[in-house]
């Protein structure tokens, strides 16, 4: 049911963990529906220097989380904001139709992390 690429990212997920010095954190989903994705980013000069994730969820949830971190590491936040859930699924060679809406939220988590980073920056300049 899953492509080889999905299984590879599921079995050998890239960038798993937390970032102690994260300046942006984003989370989507809830435990009730069976998927939670949390993404940590460390942004310097508008570039995502480091990124990690923690995910509770099915194979697709873990694989998309892993893929999105790989897609945007080293990219600018503007470039990262252009990455969509659909693009993540495509990079994985597609997902089963039933997974497209429920477990394909990794880009949303990333965008939330960037939003959170921007808010943190604003707070810092205000202080």
């Amino acid at each position, binding site marked *: 049911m899953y492509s080889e690429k999905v299984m590879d990212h599921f079995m050998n997920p890239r960038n798993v963990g937390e970032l102690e010095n994260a300046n942006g954190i984003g989370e989507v989903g809830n435990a009730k529906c069976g998927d939670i994705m949390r993404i940590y980013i460390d942004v310097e000069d508008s570039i995502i220097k480091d990124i990690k994730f923690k995910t*509770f969820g*099915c194979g697709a949830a873990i694989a998309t989380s892993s893929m999105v971190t790989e897609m945007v590491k080293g990219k600018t936040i503007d470039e990262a904001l252009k990455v969509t859930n659909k693009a993540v699924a495509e990079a994985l060679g597609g997902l089963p139709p039933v997974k497209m809406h429920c*477990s394909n939220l990794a880009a949303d988590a990333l965008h939330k992390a960037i939003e959170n980073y921007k808010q943190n920056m604003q707070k810092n300049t205000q202080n």
Partner: protein
Amino acid sequence: MRKVYLDHSATTPVRPEVVEVMNQYLTNNFGNASSVHSFGREARKGLETAREQIANLIKAQPEEIFFTSGGTEADNMAIIGTAFANQKKGKHIITTQIEHHAVLETCHHLEKLGFEVTYLPVDKNALVSVEKVKEAIRDDTILISMMHANNEVGTIQPVKEVGALAKEKGIVFHVDAVQSFGKLPIDVNEMNIDLLSASSHKIYGPKGIGCLFLRKGTKVEPLMFGGAQERKRRPGTENVPAIVGFGLAAELAGKEMAQENERLTKLRDKLIQGILEKIPHVQLNGHPTQRLANNVNVSFHYVEGESLLLMLDMKGIAASSGSACTSGSLDPSHVLLAMGISHEIAHGSLRMTLGKVNTEEDIDYCLEVLPDIVAKLRSMSPLYNSGKIEN
């Protein structure tokens, strides 16, 4: 790599003796059981032997066994057939929240047709209370439909007590015995069962065949028309090879039941104990003792079931889960939710159902592999923080 099949409640392999007899009826004895010639008579003989074998297993009369395409059809035939035959008497049906979808969705369909259905709750072990059944009975109740053993958590229901109650009140009693037929002793007279659904592929017989026990005198409207087969209750040319295979599978299951249950109970308890000892934050789902000898159902907190299944599969272990991803809907298992288990914990459920092929080595292998898999998934889970629980 070692392959360990732990999904026997989903389906079982066909045992060699059954394959052999089926083969005879696919080739030499291929006749249509309705034909008058010798080919037809051979097929008829096989068909009637199977009917006897199945009747014997549940202490019924052969003429009370009607072959169907499987458990789902038998459930439909029993519930819709009884509802239609008794609708002048009343339109109320009692069932439980933890039935198989073959029963639940059939009841939902009847609700659309104007019937009223009470779905009884269960306790935390998935047990139905006889008291609650009693309270739910009304003057217009025509049918009580209840499973013998639950397919997900293996809990065995007080069928005999409910049967006595139904008899006393003159209500038709249907038992979905798909998971218990050939695994638990059943006596349709002692248990006062009027209708009972059974399936072949759960007991090492072929798929696509099952039966409905229909007590003599119980009124059931047929759902299909077009032939005199199965005394007009289930028209269509009989699937003789499958029926013959089902018959033999039932006979052998009956002969081996006591011994196999004893063996499986030991393996089951070893697996449950091992999991509870080796892995933290885990719970057993279902009744601790009043459960099928082959059923293990546990929830690992902070992990999701489909991920578990995929990782187990990579290690050669086949199991199932009640998570939403595997139930084909957005909600996890209706059985676990009815037991009062939270969505989060239901998503992390794992069902392992043992069978004939499983050995103690299989259990050891499972207990060796499982802790690492759970630990790996927990290390990825935002809900689990290196042993510390986040609220």
